[in-house]
C-alpha cells in the first residue's frame, strides 16, 4: 500500500508492506537509523519518535497509521533549538554511556521541554519513565534535562 506523510518536515510518498511498523520504515526504507529497536514491544523507549508532536514508541505504531501525519525523529530534532540544547547537555553531564538509549531519551526529553520548559526533577522522572537505560542509573540523564532547560531559558 501507498502512504504519504511528513518526515522531519519533508513530505514523503512511499509504498509500504501493510504489516510494517513505523520503526521498520524509518530504519529500513528511510535509512533513519538513529531510532533504535531495543525490545519491539513498547517497553524500552529506544524507538521513541514524535507523531504529530506526541511521544510514541515507533515499534508499536503500524506504518499505515502515519498516513497524512507528521513524524519527527532524532535526525530532525537534532537540528532544533531544544534538541541541540539537550544533546549538548547530555554530553556535558556525562549522561551517555553505551548510547543505545540516548536518541530515545533526547526525543522524549524534547517532548517534555516543548510542553513544560521548566520541569522539576519529579516531572522529569515521570516524563522519562517509559525510556530504559541500563548503563547510567539515570542520575546524569535527569541532570542533563535540568541543565538543558536552564540553558534554553538563559538564551531566550
Amino acid at each position, binding site marked *: 500500500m501507498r502512504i504519504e506523510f511528513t518526515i522531519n518536515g519533508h513530505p514523503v510518498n512511499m509504498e509500504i508492506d501493510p504489516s510494517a511498523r513505523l520503526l521498520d520504515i524509518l530504519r529500513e526504507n528511510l535509512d533513519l537509523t538513529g531510532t533504535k529497536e531495543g525490545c519491539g*514491544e513498547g517497553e524500552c523507549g529506544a524507538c521513541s519518535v514524535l507523531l504529530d508532536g506526541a511521544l510514541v514508541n515507533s515499534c508499536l505504531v503500524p506504518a499505515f497509521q502515519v498516513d497524512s501525519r507528521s513524524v519527527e525523529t532524532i535526525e530532525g530534532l537534532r537540528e532544533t533549538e531544544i534538541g541541540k540544547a539537550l544533546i549538548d547537555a547530555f*554530553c556535558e553531564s556525562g549522561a551517555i554511556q553505551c548510547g543505545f538509549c540516548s536518541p530515545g531519551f533526547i526525543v522524549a526529553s524534547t517532548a517534555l521541554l516543548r510542553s513544560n520548559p521548566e520541569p522539576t526533577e519529579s516531572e522529569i522522572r515521570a516524563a522519562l519513565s517509559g525510556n530504559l537505560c541500563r548503563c547510567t542509573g539515570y542520575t546524569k540523564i535527569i541532570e542533563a534535562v535540568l541543565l538543558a532547560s536552564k540553558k534554553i531559558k538563559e538564551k531566550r
Partner: protein
Amino acid sequence: MAVGKRVIRVDARAKADGSAKYVADMSMPGMLVGRVLHSPVARGRITNLDIDSARKIAGVRAVVTAEDIPGGNICHIVIDDMPLLANGEVKYTGEPIALVAAESRSAVEDALEAMNLQIEQLPPLTDPEKYADPDSPRLSGKDNIFAHHKIRRGKTDVAFGKADIVIERTYRTTYQEHAYLETQGMLAVPTQEGGIDIYGSMQCPFYVHGAVATVCGLPQSKVRIIQTTTGGAFGGKEDVPSLVAGWAAVLALKANRPVKLILDRSEDIISMSKRHPSRTHIKLGADKKGKLVAAEVDILFDAGAYATLSSVVLWRGTVHACGPYRIPAVKIDARAVATNKVPCGAYRGFGSPQTLFAIESAIDELAYKLDIDPVEFRRINILKKGDKTVTGQKIRSSCGLEECLERAVQASDFINLRKKLHSEDSPVKRGLGISTIFYGMGLGAGGTKLARTGAYVSIQPDGSVQFAVGTTEMGQGMRTVLGQIVAEAFGIPFEKVSCLPVDTSRVPDSGPTVASRATTMSGRALLQACTHLKRNLAKVAAAEWGTKDRIVNIAAGKAIRTDNPDITIPWNELAAIAFDKKAELTVVAHDSSPPTSWNPETGQGDAYVVYSWCANIAQVAVDTRTGEVRLEKLWAAHDIGKAINPTLVEGQIEGGSVQGMGYGLTEEYIIDENGIPLNPKLSFYYIPTTEDAPTIEPIIVESAYDKGPFGAKGFGEQPLMGIAPAIANAIFDAVKIRFREQPFTPEKVWPELKGLDNED
C-alpha cells in the same frame, strides 16, 4: 593536564544525535537476514528437522545444521563443550539447532516453520541441588560437576571451638539478565580471498576471532573481527558473541553473501548467558569482642547445560566469599553444577555478587547476635594494610577500605540519620544498611594465560596522535580514559589524541575486556609505548640542538633542554622535524600482568595483583501496607586508586549501583521445573526506571596503585556488587526481618510483614 579532568567523552555526541552506527544500523549490498531455530524444550532428542522443505522456500539462500558446519562444531570458550549448533540432542530451552539466511524476514520465518522441528522429550534436571541424586540424569562427566574450587586456611574445627558465637545460615540468589539495551548481533561478510569479516557488538574481539576461525575451518589470518559501537555488555557480550558470530559466519560462507543476524529481545533473553543462580551456606564464628575467628562456606552455582565460563566465574566467587575481612581459619568449597538450563556466564561482578550477598548478610546477622553495631563490627574486622586475605595474600598497599567506610559513614551522618529514621511514626518504615566489599582487579591467578595487553601509539606529522588497543569500549568510557592517559603522558591537549576502532587485523591482542581491567592494563601498555616514543623524540631534539639525549626532557607538550629550560621545541614542530628526520614515530608495546602465585589444592596464594575497595550505605523505605521496598538514597564510596575522569567514574558508580538495586529488588528471571522460561520479556523482567532510581552520592577514594597508570586501578564491576546485601541489611534495620533470598519483591516481603502489624 588531561588526567583527573572531566573531559567530555569522545563518542558522546554521535551517540546522542543518532549518528553512531551499531551493528543493526549497518547494511551491505546483497545482505541477507539471518535467523536461528532454537529448542523449545529443555532436554530431548531431535526426531525431525526438515531441511529440504526449508531450502525450497522462495528467497531462502542458506540453511545450516550441525552437519553443514565447515570447521569444528564447537564454541571455544574455557572448556570446549558447547557446540555451535545442537547435534541430535538438546540440553536447554533456547539451544540453537539450525540457521537460515534469506532475502527477507518473512522468508526466514517461513523457513523456520517449514523445518517442522520435532523433539522427543527427556526428563530435565532443573534443580541444581539435585545434581548428585541417583535419579538425576548425568549431563556432564560422572558427577555433573563442572568445577570445584577450594580454600583451606588454618583449622576451622579448632577455631570454631574458640568462638563465643557461631551462626549458620543459607542464602540464595536468582538469575540476573544483563538487559543491555542493544541485543546481540553480528554482520558477517565473506571476502574475495575466501576469508570472512565480522562486524558486531562484543566485548572480546579476540575470543570471537578464535571461535569464528574454528567453526569456519579457516586460518586465523583470514578472519577479521571489527567491533561496532556496542550498546552495553556488562559481561553479557564476553563469551556468547562467539556463538552469534559463528552463526552469522557459517551462514555467510554457505550463501556467499553478507548476512546480518540480530537477536530479538525474547530470543536474546532465552538463549544468551545470565548471572548464575546460587546457594551459599555459611558458618561464621566470632569471639565476644567481635573478632571473627572462623568461617566455613559451601557454595553451589547453577551453571546450566554447558561449562562455558563457569569455572572462572566460580573462582572469583570463591576468592571473594569471605568478604574483605581478616579471618584466620577458613574452609571454602564451591561447586558449579550442570542443569538443563541456559549456560550461565559472565556478568558484572563475575560470581562475586552471589557470595558477597551471603557474607555481607551473615556479617550483619552476626553483628546483631553479638549486639555490636554493624559499622563497628566491620571496623573491627576489615582488611587494612599489612593484613592477610583468606587466601593468605598480604595487602601491601593501595588499601582504602577503612577510608571508604569512614567517609560513607560521615557523608550519610549514619548515627543521627539512623536515629531520625527509626523515630518516624509511619506505615512506611525506614532503615540504613551497610556493605563493605572488595574487588580483585584483573584476571588474577585464575586467568594468567589471558592476561596480556598490547598498545599501538603513532605520532602523526602534524602532531596529532593515534592510538589503538585491543580492549574494547562498550559504554564504560575506555576510549576517553585511555585518550586522557596518552595526552597526559606527552603533556598535550586531549583533543590531539584519537583512539582507533578495534579491528583484530590492526590492533594487538589484549586479552578480553573483562574483570575491570581495560583502564589499568591497556593504560600500562600505552604508557610503555609513550615512553618509547618520548625517547625517540628526545633524540630528535638532541640532534637539532647538537647535545646529548639525556639533557632533553619531553614534557608539557614540548622538548625542553634540562640545562636551560628556556630552550624548547613546541610539540607540532617537534613532530614535523621528527617526521622529516625519519624517526620512529609508531610504536607497539606489550605488557603482561605481574605473576600471581596460586595453589589450587589449598586456595592459598596471591589471587589478584591489587584490590579495589568499597563501602555502601543504603537507606530503604519498606511500605508495610504493600510490602514494597524502595532504595531511597545510597552513599557509595569506592577506592579506585585514581579517578582519571571523575564524571565517568561517577557514571560507573551510579549505573552499577542501580543495576545492583535491580538485582536486589525487582529482577527475577524464572525458569520453571520443566526448564521453560516464564518471563523472557522486558515487560515481565523489571529493570529499574527513572522513577525507581535512588539519589546516589558517589564518594571517590584514591589510594594509589603504584603499578597502575597514574595510580588507577579498575573498578567498573564493583558498584553493582555490594548493593543487594546493603539493601537486605537496611530492610532488617527498618523492620527487623531478614531476607536471605534476593530479590526482595513485594510478593516475598509482604507476607513476612504480617507479624509486624500485630505487634504495632
